[in-house]
């Protein structure tokens, strides 16, 4: 199984490289580019724009730029650059490593062309916000979807089953962003009971992620949680409503499929009571596809909430993504997409490996 995991990881490398190349190419072939935002400004001269392009290396051929971004081109020979560089200390012995230290391969994602901040720092700022929002919503909707899906499958043709089916149809047909707008209009615009967006109340709470914020959290944990909670209600609700539909339908149909199998009839024929049939024989089998599906949802925790984040101005990865797209901040975009791609690959791997643990028929070697 470890061998399988290693092989899968190795196989993922060319895919990740390919995707990053294509995204890089799309970003840099697009006209306008990061300097587009200066176009409207009459005080910036063509020379200044040229200097800006040179400063960020935008005047070099795209393959070279990509190569540098990746970290295999630099002041040292091609492949040597790909190796780790700098000095390390092993058992008191200092070892000089020959490689480079710029580029993604060395954990260096570059800098934002908009404000010059390191990309890794930007992602580090945004990630916790996204994880808090998407993670909370994920836990809630998975629990609800699981219970309702299993219940609907067991009580097939019941009123609950029909109600869930109708709810799922409507949930599928709801544009997430519209649900968000309506919630804001009603609860913030008309009733004034909940904030319209953002993650904290700027008048009473320091900005999220700063040391002041955590100090505030330490001194007044209840107030801090209440503030975070009131800001989370609407976005979490939005995410949960639109996501339950898909997952509960998935759980229901895989449970129904399990309940229709011959071995369920065998279990009943040997006198297993209904509870045992459902929870021991059917559920264990129905879980197999559900686990895979949950694994595939993990990347969502990192970026998938971007529609919701945009509507509610939630300062997470998705919000950053839309902002960076609008300003062609390609190093930040590349960073965000790379993180997503890596998470996706490993989430798939984790799902496969879990599957192998739960299903005795699957053996990887």
């Amino acid at each position, binding site marked *: 199984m470890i061998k399988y995991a290693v092989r899968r990881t190795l196989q993922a490398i060319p895919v990740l490289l390919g995707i990053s190349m294509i995204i890089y190419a799309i970003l840099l072939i697009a006209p306008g580019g990061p300097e587009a935002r200066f176009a409207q400004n009459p005080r910036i001269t063509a020379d200044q724009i040229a200097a800006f392009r040179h400063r960020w290396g935008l005047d070099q051929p795209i393959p070279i730029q990509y190569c540098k971004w990746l970290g295999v081109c630099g002041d040292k020979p091609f492949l040597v650059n790909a190796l780790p560089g700098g000095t390390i200390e092993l058992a008191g012995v200092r070892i000089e490593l020959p490689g480079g230290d710029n580029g993604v391969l060395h954990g260096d994602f570059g800098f934002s062309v908009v404000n010059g901040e390191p990309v890794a720092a930007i992602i580090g700022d945004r990630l916790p916000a996204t994880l808090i929002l998407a993670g909370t919503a994920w836990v809630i909707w998975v629990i609800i979807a699981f219970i309702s899906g299993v219940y609907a499958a067991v009580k097939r043709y019941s009123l609950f089953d029909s109600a869930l089916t109708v709810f799922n149809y409507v949930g599928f047909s709801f544009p997430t962003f519209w649900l968000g707008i309506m919630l804001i209009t009603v609860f913030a615009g008309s009733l004034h009971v909940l904030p319209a967006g953002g993650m904290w109340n700027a008048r009473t709470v320091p900005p999220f992620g700063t040391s002041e914020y955590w100090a505030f959290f330490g001194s007044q944990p209840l107030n801090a949680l209440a503030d975070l909670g009131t800001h989370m209600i609407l976005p979490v609700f939005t995410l949960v409503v639109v996501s339950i539909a898909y997952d509960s339908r998935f759980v229901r149909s895989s449970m129904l499929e399990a309940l229709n199998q*011959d*071995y369920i*009839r*065998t279990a009943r*024929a040997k*006198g297993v*009571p*209904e509870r045992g049939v459902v929870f021991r024989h059917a559920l*264990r089998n129905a879980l197999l596809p559900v686990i895979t599906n949950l694994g595939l949802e993990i990347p969502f925790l990192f970026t998938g909430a971007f529609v919701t984040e945009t509507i509610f101005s939630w300062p997470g990865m998705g919000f950053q993504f839309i902002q960076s797209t609008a300003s062609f901040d390609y190093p930040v975009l590349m960073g965000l997409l790379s993180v997503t791609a890596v998470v996706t690959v490993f989430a798939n791997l984790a799902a496969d490996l879990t599957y192998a643990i739960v*299903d005795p028929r699957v053996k990887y070697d």
Partner: protein
Amino acid sequence: MTGTAHLVAEAPLARDDLLLDVRGLRTHFKVMDGTVKAVDGVDLSIAQGQTLGLVGESGCGKSVTALSIMRLIDIPPGKIVDGEIWFDGRDLLQLSDSEIHDVRGNDIAMIFQEPMTSLNPVFTVGEQIAEAVRLHQHVGGAEARNRAIESLRAVGVPAPERRVRQYPHELSGGMRQRVMIAMALSCHPKLLIADEPTTALDVTIQAQILELIKEIQARTGTALLLITHDLGVVAETVQHVAVMYAGRIVEQGTAEQVLLQPKHPYTQGLLSSIPGRQRRGRELSVIKGVVPNPFRMPPGCKFEPRCPFAWERCRASEPSLAATDRDGRTVRCFLHTDEGASRRGAYEAAAVAAVRGVVAQ
């Protein structure tokens, strides 16, 4: 309940020597296009330790009959709308859910057609056999495991101590069917229902499994209800035969009677469609047409549209399952009433030809 008492008083009392006595069983299914009367008035009985074969084409209601006896019909869409199933002095249809759970697997056990899919893939075979033992015999985990090993040994599984730890996908089809039989026998049932137990297996394995079922039946004295479409299997395995067509029993008797002197044109048709040496070189006879559309059943005899011997009488109303002669067998056909006397000769000639074709090899 006064209603029940009234019914019991009117109906003939259950015969003590009968282990299973099914009377007027009707199981219907409500589907999008209407109601399918899969079983529509089935009567059959099995005495203690006896063996009965239930024969018919696919779709005739054999399996639904068996599942109805076990009360394993999915409700909805299915429903047992009428009838009584007397087993060991109790009407199974009147039992509560927990009472029927005690009957299933304990008093009546069942083997299914598809050994490949009838075992749960995520549990070891040992766990699955032991589960039945634990449920009904109220013994601990270790004891249940030992019983599972014993059961496997009894059905001829080599190295049962090792097999109990294996998962179904690690076993061959024949081995899985042996596991199913071991599971069914682990609680020493009074009645074993085998629903096409050999259909999905290789021919060589089929013979072994049939031999095993026969041998176990003889050894343990359990009654057997064998469901099959294969007359050859019936001839080799059981004492009594009931032939089913379109949700009804059309003919019943000992295996010898039914197979050597078929009274119903449908049974005759089944026999003459078996390839035999005498028929070599001739076109194989088939029963013309198909099983009637469940939504457009013929008004009279259900076999009438396919029956070469049918006449107006058969279209007018349905014959009842009536006793013929002195030998205790029953048949549902107008040919064997007074009205059919003039046509009986032609039928019997065809029946003899059909039997000759199979037997005189």
